[in-house]
Protein backbone atom coordinates (compact mmCIF):
# COMPACT_ATOMS: atom_id res chain seq x y z
CA UNK A 1 0.00 0.00 0.00
CA UNK A 2 3.02 2.21 0.19
CA UNK A 3 3.84 3.91 -3.07
CA UNK A 4 7.54 3.68 -3.90
CA UNK A 5 8.77 6.67 -5.82
CA UNK A 6 12.16 8.29 -6.22
CA UNK A 7 12.88 11.87 -5.30
CA UNK A 8 12.66 13.11 -8.88
CA UNK A 9 9.22 11.60 -9.35
CA UNK A 10 8.09 13.16 -6.11
CA UNK A 11 9.37 16.58 -7.15
CA UNK A 12 7.43 16.26 -10.41
CA UNK A 13 4.32 15.41 -8.42
CA UNK A 14 4.83 18.43 -6.14
CA UNK A 15 5.10 20.68 -9.19
CA UNK A 16 1.95 19.15 -10.66
CA UNK A 17 0.15 19.79 -7.38
CA UNK A 18 1.33 23.42 -7.45
CA UNK A 19 -0.09 23.76 -10.95
CA UNK A 20 -3.43 22.53 -9.68
CA UNK A 21 -3.29 25.05 -6.82
CA UNK A 22 -2.77 27.89 -9.28
CA UNK A 23 -5.54 26.63 -11.57
CA UNK A 24 -7.97 26.11 -8.70
CA UNK A 25 -7.51 29.47 -7.00
CA UNK A 26 -7.24 31.53 -10.23
CA UNK A 27 -10.97 31.56 -11.16
CA UNK A 28 -12.01 33.27 -7.93
CA UNK A 29 -9.12 35.77 -8.11
CA UNK A 30 -8.20 35.27 -4.46
CA UNK A 31 -7.60 32.47 -2.02
CA UNK A 32 -5.19 30.18 -0.23
CA UNK A 33 -2.61 30.07 -2.97
CA UNK A 34 0.47 30.97 -0.94
CA UNK A 35 -0.15 28.31 1.69
CA UNK A 36 -0.91 25.71 -0.97
CA UNK A 37 2.33 26.36 -2.85
CA UNK A 38 4.25 26.42 0.43
CA UNK A 39 2.84 23.14 1.73
CA UNK A 40 3.03 21.19 -1.57
CA UNK A 41 6.17 19.34 -0.48
CA UNK A 42 4.65 18.28 2.85
CA UNK A 43 1.55 16.92 1.10
CA UNK A 44 3.57 15.22 -1.64
CA UNK A 45 5.97 13.53 0.75
CA UNK A 46 3.19 12.32 3.03
CA UNK A 47 0.58 11.20 0.51
CA UNK A 48 2.86 9.91 -2.26
CA UNK A 49 5.59 8.27 -0.20
CA UNK A 50 5.34 8.07 3.57
CA UNK A 51 1.73 7.12 4.36
CA UNK A 52 0.21 3.72 3.65
CA UNK A 53 -3.24 4.07 2.12
CA UNK A 54 -5.48 2.59 -0.54
CA UNK A 55 -7.58 5.04 -2.56
CA UNK A 56 -9.81 2.12 -3.63
CA UNK A 57 -10.53 1.40 0.05
CA UNK A 58 -10.33 4.75 1.86
CA UNK A 59 -11.64 3.24 5.12
CA UNK A 60 -9.04 0.43 5.18
CA UNK A 61 -8.72 0.03 8.97
CA UNK A 62 -4.93 -0.28 8.94
CA UNK A 63 -4.34 2.81 6.80
CA UNK A 64 -2.17 5.60 8.07
CA UNK A 65 -4.36 8.59 8.93
CA UNK A 66 -3.53 12.11 7.79
CA UNK A 67 -5.46 14.90 9.48
CA UNK A 68 -5.38 18.34 7.91
CA UNK A 69 -6.32 20.30 10.98
CA UNK A 70 -5.65 23.66 9.32
CA UNK A 71 -8.59 22.81 7.08
CA UNK A 72 -8.65 25.93 4.91
CA UNK A 73 -5.48 24.93 3.06
CA UNK A 74 -7.73 23.11 0.64
CA UNK A 75 -6.42 23.83 -2.85
CA UNK A 76 -3.29 21.76 -2.14
CA UNK A 77 -5.27 19.23 -0.09
CA UNK A 78 -7.84 18.53 -2.83
CA UNK A 79 -5.18 18.52 -5.56
CA UNK A 80 -3.27 15.93 -3.53
CA UNK A 81 -6.32 13.73 -2.92
CA UNK A 82 -7.34 13.86 -6.58
CA UNK A 83 -3.83 13.12 -7.89
CA UNK A 84 -3.52 10.29 -5.37
CA UNK A 85 -6.65 8.74 -6.85
CA UNK A 86 -9.28 9.43 -4.19
CA UNK A 87 -11.54 11.29 -6.62
CA UNK A 88 -11.69 12.48 -10.21
CA UNK A 89 -9.19 15.23 -11.08
CA UNK A 90 -11.94 16.88 -13.15
CA UNK A 91 -13.78 17.68 -9.89
CA UNK A 92 -11.01 20.14 -8.95
CA UNK A 93 -12.61 22.55 -11.41
CA UNK A 94 -15.58 22.88 -9.06
CA UNK A 95 -13.38 24.17 -6.19
CA UNK A 96 -15.30 26.74 -4.10
CA UNK A 97 -18.29 26.87 -6.44
CA UNK A 98 -21.82 26.71 -5.03
CA UNK A 99 -23.00 23.17 -4.42
CA UNK A 100 -19.53 21.61 -4.75
CA UNK A 101 -18.22 19.40 -1.95
CA UNK A 102 -14.84 21.02 -2.58
CA UNK A 103 -15.55 23.78 -0.10
CA UNK A 104 -12.99 26.31 1.00
CA UNK A 105 -12.83 24.59 4.38
CA UNK A 106 -12.50 20.86 3.88
CA UNK A 107 -15.38 18.84 5.14
CA UNK A 108 -15.97 15.11 5.18
CA UNK A 109 -18.98 15.37 2.92
CA UNK A 110 -16.34 15.18 0.16
CA UNK A 111 -15.64 11.59 1.22
CA UNK A 112 -14.27 9.42 4.02
CA UNK A 113 -10.69 10.22 2.96
CA UNK A 114 -11.22 13.56 4.74
CA UNK A 115 -10.41 11.97 8.08
CA UNK A 116 -12.21 14.65 10.16
CA UNK A 117 -13.95 17.98 9.65
CA UNK A 118 -11.49 20.45 11.13
CA UNK A 119 -12.30 23.99 9.97
CA UNK A 120 -12.67 25.11 13.56
CA UNK A 121 -8.99 25.36 14.39
CA UNK A 122 -7.18 23.33 17.00
CA UNK A 123 -9.37 20.21 16.88
CA UNK A 124 -7.54 17.82 14.56
CA UNK A 125 -4.75 16.88 16.94
CA UNK A 126 -7.27 15.67 19.54
CA UNK A 127 -8.98 13.46 16.96
CA UNK A 128 -5.60 12.08 15.92
CA UNK A 129 -4.75 11.36 19.57
CA UNK A 130 -8.02 9.43 19.83
CA UNK A 131 -7.14 7.44 16.69
CA UNK A 132 -3.64 6.80 18.01
CA UNK A 133 -4.98 5.56 21.36
CA UNK A 134 -7.53 3.34 19.59
CA UNK A 135 -4.84 1.97 17.25
CA UNK A 136 -2.70 0.99 20.23
CA UNK A 137 -5.68 -0.63 21.95
CA UNK A 138 -6.62 -2.50 18.78
CA UNK A 139 -3.04 -3.54 18.04
CA UNK A 140 -2.95 -1.82 14.66
CA UNK A 141 0.35 -0.71 13.17
CA UNK A 142 -1.14 2.39 11.56
CA UNK A 143 0.38 5.83 12.12
CA UNK A 144 -1.46 9.13 12.62
CA UNK A 145 -0.08 12.24 10.92
CA UNK A 146 -1.37 15.71 11.65
CA UNK A 147 -0.69 18.74 9.48
CA UNK A 148 -1.22 21.76 11.69
CA UNK A 149 -0.89 25.45 10.95
CA UNK A 150 1.57 27.51 12.97
CA UNK A 151 -1.01 30.14 13.95
CA UNK A 152 -3.36 27.31 14.85
CA UNK A 153 -1.01 26.35 17.67
CA UNK A 154 -2.32 29.39 19.55
CA UNK A 155 -5.48 27.35 20.20
CA UNK A 156 -5.49 25.92 23.73
CA UNK A 157 -6.87 22.57 22.62
CA UNK A 158 -3.64 21.84 20.71
CA UNK A 159 -1.77 21.92 24.00
CA UNK A 160 -4.36 19.76 25.79
CA UNK A 161 -3.94 17.17 23.07
CA UNK A 162 -0.14 17.52 22.99
CA UNK A 163 0.01 17.09 26.76
CA UNK A 164 -1.91 13.81 26.60
CA UNK A 165 0.05 12.54 23.57
CA UNK A 166 3.28 13.14 25.45
CA UNK A 167 2.00 11.70 28.73
CA UNK A 168 0.80 8.52 26.99
CA UNK A 169 3.94 8.22 24.84
CA UNK A 170 1.98 7.95 21.58
CA UNK A 171 4.82 6.98 19.24
CA UNK A 172 2.30 6.29 16.46
CA UNK A 173 1.53 10.01 16.29
CA UNK A 174 3.45 12.55 14.24
CA UNK A 175 2.56 16.24 14.38
CA UNK A 176 3.85 18.30 11.48
CA UNK A 177 3.53 22.05 11.81
CA UNK A 178 3.51 23.91 8.51
CA UNK A 179 5.65 26.77 9.77
CA UNK A 180 5.05 29.44 7.15
CA UNK A 181 5.00 32.16 9.80
CA UNK A 182 1.77 33.79 8.65
CA UNK A 183 -1.64 33.87 10.21
CA UNK A 184 -4.78 35.80 9.32
CA UNK A 185 -3.52 39.13 10.65
CA UNK A 186 -0.05 38.72 9.14
CA UNK A 187 3.31 37.74 10.57
CA UNK A 188 3.13 35.53 13.65
CA UNK A 189 5.52 37.85 15.44
CA UNK A 190 2.99 40.63 15.03
CA UNK A 191 0.21 38.56 16.60
CA UNK A 192 1.85 36.19 19.07
CA UNK A 193 5.08 34.30 18.63
CA UNK A 194 5.17 30.56 19.36
CA UNK A 195 8.87 30.57 20.11
CA UNK A 196 10.67 28.75 21.51
CA UNK A 197 8.44 26.16 19.83
CA UNK A 198 10.92 23.27 19.78
CA UNK A 199 11.57 23.66 23.50
CA UNK A 200 7.84 23.83 24.20
CA UNK A 201 7.12 20.64 22.29
CA UNK A 202 10.12 18.88 23.86
CA UNK A 203 8.82 19.82 27.29
CA UNK A 204 5.46 18.28 26.33
CA UNK A 205 7.22 14.96 25.68
CA UNK A 206 7.66 15.04 21.92
CA UNK A 207 10.71 13.90 19.95
CA UNK A 208 11.34 17.06 17.94
CA UNK A 209 12.93 17.70 14.55
CA UNK A 210 13.24 20.90 12.56
CA UNK A 211 13.46 20.57 8.78
CA UNK A 212 13.21 22.56 5.57
CA UNK A 213 9.56 21.91 4.79
CA UNK A 214 10.21 22.49 1.11
CA UNK A 215 12.87 19.77 0.90
CA UNK A 216 11.11 16.49 0.13
CA UNK A 217 14.21 14.45 0.91
CA UNK A 218 14.57 16.11 4.32
CA UNK A 219 10.88 15.56 5.08
CA UNK A 220 11.13 11.87 4.17
CA UNK A 221 14.15 11.43 6.46
CA UNK A 222 12.27 13.17 9.26
CA UNK A 223 9.26 10.84 8.85
CA UNK A 224 11.60 7.87 8.90
CA UNK A 225 13.26 9.06 12.08
CA UNK A 226 9.82 9.69 13.61
CA UNK A 227 8.74 6.16 12.68
CA UNK A 228 11.83 4.75 14.39
CA UNK A 229 11.21 6.73 17.59
CA UNK A 230 9.69 4.60 20.33
CA UNK A 231 7.83 5.74 23.44
CA UNK A 232 7.34 9.35 22.33
CA UNK A 233 5.15 11.17 19.84
CA UNK A 234 7.04 13.04 17.13
CA UNK A 235 6.98 16.70 16.25
CA UNK A 236 8.32 18.02 12.96
CA UNK A 237 8.70 21.75 12.61
CA UNK A 238 8.58 22.06 8.84
CA UNK A 239 9.76 25.53 7.85
CA UNK A 240 7.97 26.37 4.63
CA UNK A 241 8.16 29.35 2.32
CA UNK A 242 4.84 30.80 1.25
CA UNK A 243 4.39 30.73 -2.51
CA UNK A 244 7.29 28.26 -2.91
CA UNK A 245 7.94 27.19 -6.46
CA UNK A 246 6.77 30.35 -8.20
CA UNK A 247 9.53 32.98 -8.25
CA UNK A 248 7.16 35.94 -8.36
CA UNK A 249 5.17 34.67 -5.36
CA UNK A 250 7.87 33.10 -3.23
CA UNK A 251 8.11 34.73 0.16
CA UNK A 252 5.03 36.95 -0.25
CA UNK A 253 3.43 36.51 3.13
CA UNK A 254 -0.29 36.88 2.66
CA UNK A 255 -2.86 34.75 4.43
CA UNK A 256 -5.31 35.43 1.62
CA UNK A 257 -3.72 36.54 -1.63
CA UNK A 258 -5.36 38.54 -4.42
CA UNK A 259 -4.62 36.45 -7.45
CA UNK A 260 -5.39 38.34 -10.68
CA UNK A 261 -5.44 36.40 -14.00
CA UNK A 262 -2.12 37.74 -15.27
CA UNK A 263 -0.32 36.64 -12.08
CA UNK A 264 -1.97 33.24 -12.30
CA UNK A 265 -0.97 32.92 -15.95
CA UNK A 266 2.67 33.71 -15.30
CA UNK A 267 2.71 31.36 -12.29
CA UNK A 268 1.26 28.64 -14.47
CA UNK A 269 3.87 29.22 -17.21
CA UNK A 270 6.67 29.08 -14.65
CA UNK A 271 5.44 25.80 -13.17
CA UNK A 272 4.90 24.30 -16.65
CA UNK A 273 8.49 25.16 -17.50
CA UNK A 274 9.72 23.50 -14.28
CA UNK A 275 7.72 20.40 -15.06
CA UNK A 276 9.30 20.30 -18.52
CA UNK A 277 12.76 20.58 -16.90
CA UNK A 278 12.04 17.70 -14.52
CA UNK A 279 10.69 15.55 -17.36
CA UNK A 280 13.91 16.10 -19.35
Amino acid sequence: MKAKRNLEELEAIATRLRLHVVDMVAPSGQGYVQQGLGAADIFTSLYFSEARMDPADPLWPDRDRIFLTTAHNTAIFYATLAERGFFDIEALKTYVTDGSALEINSCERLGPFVEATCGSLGQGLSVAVGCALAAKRQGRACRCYVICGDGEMQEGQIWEAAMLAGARGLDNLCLIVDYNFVQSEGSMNRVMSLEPLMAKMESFGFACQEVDGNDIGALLSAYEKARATKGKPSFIKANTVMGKGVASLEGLMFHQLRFPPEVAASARAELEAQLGEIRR
Partner: protein
Amino acid sequence: MSEILTKLEAADFINRSFKPLPRSYGDALVEAAKADSRIVALCADLVPPTETDRFRDELPHRFENVGIAEANMIGIAGGMARSGEIPFCHSFCAFIVKRALDQITMQAAYPKLPIKLVGFLPGVATILGVSHQAIEDVAILRAVPEMAIFEPSGPEYHAAMVRLALDWDGPVYLRMKRPETPPPPFEPRTLSIGKGVIRREGGDMTIISAGLCVAESLAAATTLGEEGIDARVVDMASIKPLDAALVLESAASSGAIITAENHSIVGGLGSAVAEVLADEGIGLPFKRIGVQDRFCEGGTTPYLMNQFGIDATAIADAARQVMRRKG
Protein backbone atom coordinates in the same frame (compact mmCIF):
# COMPACT_ATOMS: atom_id res chain seq x y z
CA MET B 1 -4.13 7.37 60.29
CA SER B 2 -4.48 5.73 56.88
CA GLU B 3 -8.02 4.64 57.70
CA ILE B 4 -8.92 8.21 58.58
CA LEU B 5 -7.38 9.45 55.33
CA THR B 6 -9.35 6.94 53.28
CA LYS B 7 -12.54 8.24 54.84
CA LEU B 8 -11.54 11.81 54.14
CA GLU B 9 -10.73 11.06 50.49
CA ALA B 10 -14.13 9.50 49.96
CA ALA B 11 -15.96 12.81 50.31
CA ASP B 12 -16.85 14.43 47.00
CA PHE B 13 -19.56 17.08 47.62
CA ILE B 14 -22.14 14.87 45.94
CA ASN B 15 -22.57 12.06 48.38
CA ARG B 16 -24.14 14.02 51.24
CA SER B 17 -24.77 10.91 53.30
CA PHE B 18 -21.18 9.58 53.48
CA LYS B 19 -22.68 6.12 52.96
CA PRO B 20 -21.85 4.02 49.90
CA LEU B 21 -24.04 5.03 46.96
CA PRO B 22 -25.14 2.62 44.24
CA ARG B 23 -23.60 3.09 40.81
CA SER B 24 -26.77 2.35 38.89
CA TYR B 25 -25.49 4.06 35.74
CA GLY B 26 -21.85 3.04 36.12
CA ASP B 27 -22.66 -0.61 36.74
CA ALA B 28 -24.92 -0.72 33.69
CA LEU B 29 -22.13 0.78 31.60
CA VAL B 30 -19.65 -1.84 32.82
CA GLU B 31 -22.11 -4.64 32.01
CA ALA B 32 -22.75 -3.20 28.55
CA ALA B 33 -19.01 -2.84 27.94
CA LYS B 34 -18.38 -6.43 28.96
CA ALA B 35 -20.94 -7.51 26.34
CA ASP B 36 -19.72 -5.13 23.61
CA SER B 37 -15.98 -4.70 23.19
CA ARG B 38 -16.45 -1.49 21.17
CA ILE B 39 -17.50 0.46 24.29
CA VAL B 40 -14.79 2.63 25.86
CA ALA B 41 -15.09 5.21 28.64
CA LEU B 42 -13.41 8.59 28.86
CA CYS B 43 -13.46 10.93 31.80
CA ALA B 44 -12.19 14.47 32.40
CA ASP B 45 -10.94 13.66 35.90
CA LEU B 46 -14.28 13.25 37.70
CA VAL B 47 -14.24 9.51 38.05
CA PRO B 48 -16.26 8.66 41.21
CA PRO B 49 -18.75 11.53 40.72
CA THR B 50 -19.54 10.16 37.24
CA GLU B 51 -19.77 6.57 38.52
CA THR B 52 -16.94 5.42 36.26
CA ASP B 53 -14.65 4.11 39.01
CA ARG B 54 -15.72 0.51 38.46
CA PHE B 55 -15.13 0.84 34.71
CA ARG B 56 -11.68 2.28 35.45
CA ASP B 57 -10.83 -0.63 37.76
CA GLU B 58 -12.36 -3.51 35.80
CA LEU B 59 -11.68 -2.45 32.22
CA PRO B 60 -8.55 -0.29 32.57
CA HIS B 61 -7.37 -0.85 28.98
CA ARG B 62 -10.65 0.64 27.74
CA PHE B 63 -10.72 3.58 30.14
CA GLU B 64 -9.00 6.91 29.59
CA ASN B 65 -8.87 9.72 32.12
CA VAL B 66 -7.79 12.49 29.75
CA GLY B 67 -7.23 15.00 32.53
CA ILE B 68 -9.15 18.20 33.09
CA ALA B 69 -9.59 18.93 29.40
CA GLU B 70 -13.15 18.52 28.15
CA ALA B 71 -12.66 19.87 24.63
CA ASN B 72 -9.76 17.51 24.08
CA MET B 73 -11.86 14.64 25.45
CA ILE B 74 -14.52 15.14 22.79
CA GLY B 75 -11.93 15.34 19.99
CA ILE B 76 -10.28 12.16 21.26
CA ALA B 77 -13.68 10.47 21.38
CA GLY B 78 -14.06 11.49 17.73
CA GLY B 79 -10.85 9.68 16.85
CA MET B 80 -11.90 6.59 18.81
CA ALA B 81 -15.37 6.55 17.25
CA ARG B 82 -13.79 6.86 13.80
CA SER B 83 -11.72 3.81 14.74
CA GLY B 84 -14.81 1.70 15.38
CA GLU B 85 -15.23 2.31 19.10
CA ILE B 86 -18.23 3.66 21.07
CA PRO B 87 -16.91 6.26 23.51
CA PHE B 88 -18.90 7.29 26.58
CA CYS B 89 -17.48 10.67 27.73
CA HIS B 90 -17.99 11.76 31.33
CA SER B 91 -17.92 15.04 33.21
CA PHE B 92 -20.38 17.40 34.87
CA CYS B 93 -23.23 18.70 32.67
CA ALA B 94 -21.91 22.25 32.81
CA PHE B 95 -18.47 21.32 31.54
CA ILE B 96 -19.16 18.59 29.01
CA VAL B 97 -21.71 20.76 27.19
CA LYS B 98 -20.56 24.33 27.62
CA ARG B 99 -16.77 23.91 27.50
CA ALA B 100 -16.84 21.61 24.49
CA LEU B 101 -19.78 22.75 22.36
CA ASP B 102 -17.77 23.44 19.20
CA GLN B 103 -16.05 20.07 19.54
CA ILE B 104 -19.41 18.37 20.13
CA THR B 105 -20.90 19.88 16.99
CA MET B 106 -17.89 19.29 14.73
CA GLN B 107 -16.43 16.03 16.03
CA ALA B 108 -19.55 14.22 17.26
CA ALA B 109 -22.75 15.60 15.75
CA TYR B 110 -21.77 16.66 12.21
CA PRO B 111 -20.08 13.31 11.48
CA LYS B 112 -22.95 11.56 13.33
CA LEU B 113 -20.53 9.48 15.37
CA PRO B 114 -21.65 7.21 18.24
CA ILE B 115 -20.23 9.48 20.93
CA LYS B 116 -22.21 9.40 24.16
CA LEU B 117 -21.88 12.48 26.37
CA VAL B 118 -22.69 11.75 29.99
CA GLY B 119 -23.13 14.73 32.28
CA PHE B 120 -23.79 14.71 36.02
CA LEU B 121 -25.05 17.59 38.23
CA PRO B 122 -28.04 18.60 36.07
CA GLY B 123 -29.65 22.02 36.41
CA VAL B 124 -29.53 23.68 39.81
CA ALA B 125 -28.78 20.46 41.68
CA THR B 126 -25.39 21.12 43.22
CA ILE B 127 -23.91 22.82 46.21
CA LEU B 128 -20.99 23.82 43.95
CA GLY B 129 -22.80 26.88 42.64
CA VAL B 130 -23.15 28.81 39.44
CA SER B 131 -19.90 27.58 37.87
CA HIS B 132 -21.07 23.98 38.14
CA GLN B 133 -24.76 24.48 37.35
CA ALA B 134 -26.14 23.68 33.91
CA ILE B 135 -29.47 25.40 33.45
CA GLU B 136 -29.05 25.88 29.69
CA ASP B 137 -27.44 22.60 28.58
CA VAL B 138 -30.66 21.10 27.18
CA ALA B 139 -31.46 24.30 25.27
CA ILE B 140 -27.98 24.29 23.73
CA LEU B 141 -27.88 20.66 22.69
CA ARG B 142 -31.52 20.56 21.54
CA ALA B 143 -30.43 22.96 18.79
CA VAL B 144 -27.63 20.66 17.61
CA PRO B 145 -28.67 18.39 14.71
CA GLU B 146 -28.35 14.59 15.15
CA MET B 147 -28.17 14.93 18.96
CA ALA B 148 -30.51 12.94 21.21
CA ILE B 149 -31.12 14.00 24.82
CA PHE B 150 -32.28 11.64 27.55
CA GLU B 151 -32.80 12.43 31.23
CA PRO B 152 -33.73 9.82 33.85
CA SER B 153 -36.13 10.67 36.67
CA GLY B 154 -34.49 8.30 39.14
CA PRO B 155 -32.00 5.48 39.58
CA GLU B 156 -34.52 2.91 38.37
CA TYR B 157 -34.04 4.41 34.89
CA HIS B 158 -30.23 4.71 34.97
CA ALA B 159 -29.51 1.33 33.37
CA ALA B 160 -32.05 2.19 30.67
CA MET B 161 -30.00 5.30 29.85
CA VAL B 162 -27.08 3.14 28.72
CA ARG B 163 -29.42 1.12 26.50
CA LEU B 164 -31.00 4.26 24.97
CA ALA B 165 -27.56 5.73 24.33
CA LEU B 166 -26.48 2.58 22.49
CA ASP B 167 -29.76 2.32 20.56
CA TRP B 168 -29.48 5.87 19.17
CA ASP B 169 -27.48 5.84 15.94
CA GLY B 170 -25.40 8.95 16.63
CA PRO B 171 -24.39 11.29 19.42
CA VAL B 172 -26.32 11.31 22.68
CA TYR B 173 -26.43 13.47 25.79
CA LEU B 174 -27.40 11.76 29.05
CA ARG B 175 -28.34 14.22 31.78
CA MET B 176 -27.64 12.19 34.89
CA LYS B 177 -28.31 12.78 38.57
CA ARG B 178 -26.59 10.68 41.19
CA PRO B 179 -28.78 10.02 44.22
CA GLU B 180 -27.44 12.08 47.12
CA THR B 181 -28.34 9.41 49.67
CA PRO B 182 -28.74 5.64 49.24
CA PRO B 183 -32.12 5.18 47.51
CA PRO B 184 -34.69 2.62 48.69
CA PRO B 185 -34.58 -0.69 46.79
CA PHE B 186 -35.87 -0.38 43.24
CA GLU B 187 -36.56 -2.47 40.16
CA PRO B 188 -34.79 -1.28 36.99
CA ARG B 189 -37.26 -0.01 34.39
CA THR B 190 -36.97 0.29 30.63
CA LEU B 191 -37.46 3.31 28.38
CA SER B 192 -37.84 3.81 24.63
CA ILE B 193 -36.41 6.46 22.34
CA GLY B 194 -39.02 9.12 21.57
CA LYS B 195 -41.46 7.81 24.17
CA GLY B 196 -42.66 9.47 27.34
CA VAL B 197 -43.93 7.43 30.28
CA ILE B 198 -47.33 8.16 31.87
CA ARG B 199 -46.45 7.91 35.56
CA ARG B 200 -49.88 8.92 36.82
CA GLU B 201 -53.18 9.09 34.98
CA GLY B 202 -55.52 12.06 35.28
CA GLY B 203 -58.04 13.78 33.03
CA ASP B 204 -58.14 17.40 34.26
CA MET B 205 -54.69 18.52 33.18
CA THR B 206 -51.24 17.17 32.32
CA ILE B 207 -47.86 17.84 33.92
CA ILE B 208 -45.05 17.01 31.50
CA SER B 209 -41.76 16.82 33.37
CA ALA B 210 -38.30 15.35 33.30
CA GLY B 211 -35.48 14.45 35.64
CA LEU B 212 -35.66 15.64 39.23
CA CYS B 213 -38.96 17.41 38.54
CA VAL B 214 -40.82 14.16 37.91
CA ALA B 215 -40.89 13.24 41.61
CA GLU B 216 -41.91 16.83 42.39
CA SER B 217 -44.68 16.62 39.79
CA LEU B 218 -45.96 13.34 41.25
CA ALA B 219 -45.99 14.92 44.73
CA ALA B 220 -47.81 17.96 43.34
CA ALA B 221 -50.35 15.68 41.63
CA THR B 222 -51.05 13.97 44.95
CA THR B 223 -51.73 17.35 46.58
CA LEU B 224 -53.86 18.44 43.63
CA GLY B 225 -55.80 15.17 43.81
CA GLU B 226 -56.77 16.01 47.38
CA GLU B 227 -58.16 19.30 46.03
CA GLY B 228 -60.18 17.51 43.34
CA ILE B 229 -57.79 18.25 40.45
CA ASP B 230 -56.92 15.03 38.64
CA ALA B 231 -53.54 15.51 36.94
CA ARG B 232 -51.76 13.21 34.50
CA VAL B 233 -47.98 13.15 35.05
CA VAL B 234 -45.74 12.38 32.07
CA ASP B 235 -42.08 11.51 32.55
CA MET B 236 -40.55 12.84 29.33
CA ALA B 237 -37.20 11.05 29.67
CA SER B 238 -36.73 11.33 25.90
CA ILE B 239 -36.41 15.11 25.59
CA LYS B 240 -35.09 14.81 22.04
CA PRO B 241 -36.60 13.17 20.13
CA LEU B 242 -39.70 14.30 22.01
CA ASP B 243 -42.83 12.18 22.28
CA ALA B 244 -44.92 14.66 20.26
CA ALA B 245 -47.80 12.18 19.94
CA LEU B 246 -48.11 11.96 23.73
CA VAL B 247 -47.99 15.76 24.06
CA LEU B 248 -50.83 16.14 21.53
CA GLU B 249 -52.86 13.31 23.03
CA SER B 250 -52.44 14.86 26.50
CA ALA B 251 -53.55 18.24 25.16
CA ALA B 252 -56.62 16.69 23.57
CA SER B 253 -57.61 14.53 26.53
CA SER B 254 -56.86 16.90 29.44
CA GLY B 255 -57.11 20.40 27.89
CA ALA B 256 -54.37 22.02 30.02
CA ILE B 257 -50.62 21.45 30.20
CA ILE B 258 -47.79 22.55 32.44
CA THR B 259 -44.18 21.57 32.00
CA ALA B 260 -41.70 21.16 34.85
CA GLU B 261 -37.95 20.92 34.45
CA ASN B 262 -34.71 21.40 36.36
CA HIS B 263 -33.50 23.82 33.67
CA SER B 264 -34.13 27.32 32.40
CA ILE B 265 -37.60 27.97 30.99
CA VAL B 266 -35.74 29.10 27.85
CA GLY B 267 -35.16 26.38 25.32
CA GLY B 268 -35.63 23.22 27.37
CA LEU B 269 -38.46 20.71 27.78
CA GLY B 270 -41.10 23.45 28.20
CA SER B 271 -40.03 25.09 24.96
CA ALA B 272 -40.02 21.75 23.16
CA VAL B 273 -43.59 21.01 24.30
CA ALA B 274 -44.72 24.55 23.40
CA GLU B 275 -43.23 24.14 19.92
CA VAL B 276 -45.21 20.94 19.33
CA LEU B 277 -48.45 22.62 20.47
CA ALA B 278 -47.88 25.81 18.49
CA ASP B 279 -46.94 23.93 15.33
CA GLU B 280 -50.25 22.09 15.56
CA GLY B 281 -52.17 25.32 16.18
CA ILE B 282 -53.29 24.20 19.61
CA GLY B 283 -54.09 26.94 22.12
CA LEU B 284 -54.74 25.85 25.68
CA PRO B 285 -53.97 26.92 29.27
CA PHE B 286 -50.21 26.34 29.48
CA LYS B 287 -47.38 27.17 31.87
CA ARG B 288 -43.67 26.40 31.98
CA ILE B 289 -42.07 25.64 35.35
CA GLY B 290 -38.30 26.05 35.37
CA VAL B 291 -35.57 28.46 36.35
CA GLN B 292 -36.93 31.88 35.35
CA ASP B 293 -34.16 33.03 33.00
CA ARG B 294 -31.76 33.86 35.80
CA PHE B 295 -28.55 32.52 37.30
CA CYS B 296 -28.67 30.42 40.44
CA GLU B 297 -26.38 29.83 43.42
CA GLY B 298 -24.96 26.91 45.34
CA GLY B 299 -27.02 25.10 47.97
CA THR B 300 -28.65 21.82 48.88
CA THR B 301 -30.93 20.43 46.21
CA PRO B 302 -34.26 20.75 48.10
CA TYR B 303 -33.38 24.33 49.07
CA LEU B 304 -32.47 25.27 45.49
CA MET B 305 -35.51 23.59 43.97
CA ASN B 306 -37.69 25.56 46.35
CA GLN B 307 -35.76 28.82 45.98
CA PHE B 308 -35.82 28.70 42.17
CA GLY B 309 -39.43 27.59 41.92
CA ILE B 310 -39.15 24.08 40.54
CA ASP B 311 -40.42 22.00 43.48
CA ALA B 312 -43.80 20.37 44.17
CA THR B 313 -45.17 23.58 45.72
CA ALA B 314 -44.36 25.65 42.63
CA ILE B 315 -45.73 22.96 40.33
CA ALA B 316 -49.00 22.70 42.30
CA ASP B 317 -49.37 26.52 42.24
CA ALA B 318 -48.91 26.57 38.46
CA ALA B 319 -51.39 23.73 38.09
CA ARG B 320 -54.06 25.67 40.05
CA GLN B 321 -53.38 28.70 37.83
CA VAL B 322 -53.91 26.83 34.56
CA MET B 323 -56.99 25.13 36.01
CA ARG B 324 -58.46 28.57 36.75
CA ARG B 325 -57.70 29.65 33.18
CA LYS B 326 -59.22 26.43 31.88
CA GLY B 327 -62.38 27.44 33.78
